[in-house]
């Protein structure tokens, strides 16, 4: 990774950190220490550079983010609707008692900034964090919605911490939007602690403005017999990178991570997933599907690590892309690192074009070109969307994908 020597790109952020008032808002000492360590790490790491040898960033050049001058702004988030019983949804600055203890135990414990520049920056600079705490054994019947809204030319570092205590169940939808205008940068980090026997479903709706920059890091740690589900829906933004890291920490831990994406125009979307089977008797499944049009570039890198002692593990991964334009580009790379011998593993990556047979079949029943294509494209991506069990979330996901596909086909501007 490049160091920051001789560049002013990192200096802007280092200066922003130095300009913060000392002991900002009477933060506890542990948080101040975490921030200091993070900015020190960023000083060493600098921004990542897309070049040979840097596998992790080789398809995504974030130079346009690093070079640009943004206005620092506190993250703008809003919880939508009432908060059900057994759930605490507070800003970190307002947290007290057991909530501050939970924050202290988990903040920074799941999303490591050791090798992640953007996580280091977020940790150093986030203005306030959203803390969602679900009490032990609590089954939260309804989906919690958190909306994150950015404004023109700003940079924001939203930070979200979800702590699901043992035996609890919760579903959370995070949606990313932008106010009219573009050229803003969202650098969001979401940490998820899934306690023993708990279940967390996290839905990410990414509908950033065209031309905006979006780097997201989602890190989940899944304890014994617990389950983590993630559905990532990317339907906006200019340059988008999402790192999703899941650690299956104890026996019985499992995850299902799905993604659907629609890219067009000059969009660049990079989904990096990492599943670490840190224990025996864990299982993971992953399905990402994308529709790629225009001159856009969609990247999928799916890394799965199964160390020697992680026996009796199961992992399934699939990435399928429908490529609708000869100017668009798809980079898809499964990376399975398996050192244990008792493992069931499958992976597949396929890039296809619109099936002329299917198109002919539909037209032979009277459907015009546009309608036939639209049905087929929706049908392709449906596998991810229809798997969403919550009716309301699924409808919202359908709407999001519909709007992105309509935008792509030029019916809407």
């Amino acid at each position, binding site marked *: 990774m490049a160091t920051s020597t001789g560049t002013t790109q990192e200096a802007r952020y280092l200066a922003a950190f130095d300009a913060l008032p000392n002991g900002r808002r009477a933060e506890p000492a542990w948080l101040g220490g975490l921030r200091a360590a993070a900015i020190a790490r960023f000083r060493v790491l600098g921004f990542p550079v897309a070049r040979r040898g840097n596998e992790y960033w080789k398809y995504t050049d974030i130079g346009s983010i690093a070079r640009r001058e943004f206005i620092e702004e506190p993250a703008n988030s809003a919880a939508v609707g009432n908060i059900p019983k057994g759930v605490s949804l507070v800003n970190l600055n307002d947290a007290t008692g057991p909530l501050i203890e939970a924050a202290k135990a988990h903040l920074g414990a799941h999303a490591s900034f050791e090798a992640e520049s953007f996580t280091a920056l977020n940790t150093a600079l986030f203005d306030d964090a959203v803390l969602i705490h679900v009490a032990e054994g609590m089954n939260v019947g309804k989906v919690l919605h958190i909306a994150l809204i950015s404004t023109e030319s700003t940079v924001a570092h939203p930070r979200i911490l979800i702590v699901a205590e043992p035996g609890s169940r919760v579903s959370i939808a995070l949606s990313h939007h932008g106010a009219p205008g573009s050229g803003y940068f969202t650098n969001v980090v979401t940490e998820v602690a899934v306690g023993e026997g708990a279940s967390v479903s996290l839905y990410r709706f990414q509908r950033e403005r065209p031309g905006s920059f979006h780097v997201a890091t989602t890190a989940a740690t899944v304890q014994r017999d617990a389950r983590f589900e993630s559905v990532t829906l990317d339907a906006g933004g200019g340059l988008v990178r999402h790192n999703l890291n899941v650690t299956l920490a104890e026996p019985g831990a499992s995850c299902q991570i799905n993604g659907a994406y629609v890219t067009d125009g000059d969009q660049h979307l990079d989904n990096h997933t990492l599943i670490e089977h840190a224990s025996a008797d864990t299982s993971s499944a992953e399905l990402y599907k994308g529709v790629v049009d225009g001159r856009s570039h969609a990247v999928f890198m799916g890394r799965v690590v199964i160390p020697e002692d992680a026996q009796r593990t199961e992992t399934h991964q699939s990435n399928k892309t429908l490529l609708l334009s000869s100017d668009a580009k798809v980079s898809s790379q499964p990376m399975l690192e398996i050192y244990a011998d008792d493992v069931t593993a499958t992976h597949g990556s396929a890039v296809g074009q619109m*099936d*002329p*047979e*299917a198109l*002919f*079949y*539909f*037209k*032979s*029943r*009277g*459907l*015009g*070109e546009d*309608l*036939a294509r639209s*049905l*087929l494209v*929706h*049908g*392709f*991506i*449906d*596998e991810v969307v*229809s798997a969403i069990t919550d009716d309301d979330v699924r409808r919202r996901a359908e709407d999001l994908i519909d709007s992105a596909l309509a935008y792509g086909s030029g019916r809407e501007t």
Partner: protein
Amino acid sequence: MLDIQGLHATVGGTEILKGVDLRVAAGETHAIMGPNGSGKSTLAYVLAGRPGYEVTQGTVTFDGKDMLAMPVEERARAGLFLSFQSPIEIPGVRLDHFLRAGYNETRKAAGEAEFDVLKFDRLIKEKVGVVNMDYAFTKRFVNQGFSGGERKRNEVLQMAVLEPKLAILDEVDSGLDVDALREVAEGINSLRSPDRALILVTHYQRVLSYVVPDRVHVLAGGRFVAEGGKELALEIESRGYDGLVGGTGASG
């Protein structure tokens, strides 16, 4: 209704149809028989407008209109229907959604009001009975996980819904056991009417015992080599194509 004159067509640069003439009037049922590679399916695909099937000579007039000038979907909306020999599966698209889209496009083209979901659901519930198909199949993805026989029932269901003027049924009996064949054939027979013409494309006589044709044409080597009444099909069954046409078309 359909008038084919001097039709030549190539697939991938190879000439498959070498001068086909056929006239089909409303209310008639024609059978086109022929050995493998004779051009039967090519003729069906050329009429439906499948990409890659290039007409090099000849004319096709459908209801007085130059059919070869019409794109695939316009032919369908004008009342042409092709029952596919091997209908493909389309994951993610529900049969009823797909069929309602085709139905409404056809109605729109005719200046008729579209059917909403409820109205179309009533229609499809009535039509599944025609081919004795399980209504639940209409909520499934198009042909996904359907057996060969279920796919054929689905094709005839689509025909029943779209009510074409001319239906071309390509090997409609393949993959069907005797009971299924009888049910599908009953469905097809129930769709015969004085306004509607059928063309059955088939290798074997079997289906013609159930859907009895008015005329039988034998295609070999890209041309019709024999024509007759329904008894011609039985003659083929007993003597084989070689016996009938002297082996001209049994190659390729």
